[in-house]
């Protein structure tokens, strides 16, 4: 089956990222496919490259990147939700006169239309928030 995930909780504020990663791992182990993960609302903080947990704690962003690397899962971040919360790519940073940025590939900034399309293209869309 084709799965999609909608993640709307931030690391440290919500258990949603942990629950979503755990679910994703099991889905993939069973031979299903995950078309994409869409990060919305507070979930956009999952993409922050500056997230620096203590060494004995999981870096959630790296866990998402690993999921992408192993299984090709696309990691889409709502651009409007991300910009207002201070999460942006190098090109968006330039457009807004910023020198710094904190979102890099494989995370991609995209519009809300992507979420609707994900729901329509997948057999199942599961929300973790």
């Amino acid at each position: 089956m084709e799965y999609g995930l909608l993640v709307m909780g931030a690391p440290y504020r919500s258990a949603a990222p942990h629950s979503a990663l755990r679910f994703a791992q099991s889905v993939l182990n069973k031979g299903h496919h995950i078309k994409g993960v869409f990060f919305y609302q507070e979930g956009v903080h999952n993409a922050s490259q500056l997230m620096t947990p203590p060494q004995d704690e999981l870096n959630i962003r790296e866990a998402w990147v690993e999921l992408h690397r192993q299984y090709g899962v696309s990691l889409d971040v709502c651009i409007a939700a991300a910009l207002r919360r201070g999460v942006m790519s190098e090109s968006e940073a330039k457009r807004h006169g910023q020198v710094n940025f904190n979102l890099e590939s494989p995370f991609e900034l995209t519009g809300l239309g992507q979420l609707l399309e994900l729901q329509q293209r997948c057999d199942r869309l599961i929300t973790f928030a």
Partner: protein
Amino acid sequence: MTEPNERLVVIRHAPYSSNELREGLDVALVAAAFGQAVSLLFLGQGVLALLKEQKAGAPGQKSTLPTIDMLEMYDIETILVPTETLQNFNITADQLVDGVTLLPISDLPDLFQRYDYVLNF
């Protein structure tokens, strides 16, 4: 009654206390702009988004009422609220914006079964 790609967006958060209400409405607006048939259901704290006497908030806080007022322009004409939810807040229908359809809360199970896509905010 189900149209192709009919979509239910459920709003459960109050105005001002967070951006959850606004970002839920944004999904409904984008879906409608893409030509999908969208219904909105307001549950719990979400019904407070429909109070018509809302004014601009504390300095710098943006109101969501203008977005609510724009829904019809986006062809989002089905705005649903359970009667019992209003009663829980001691709110009457005339305190809400125009265009709200009340339904008994016992209709919710059937309502949720009826849509192709449901998103809960």
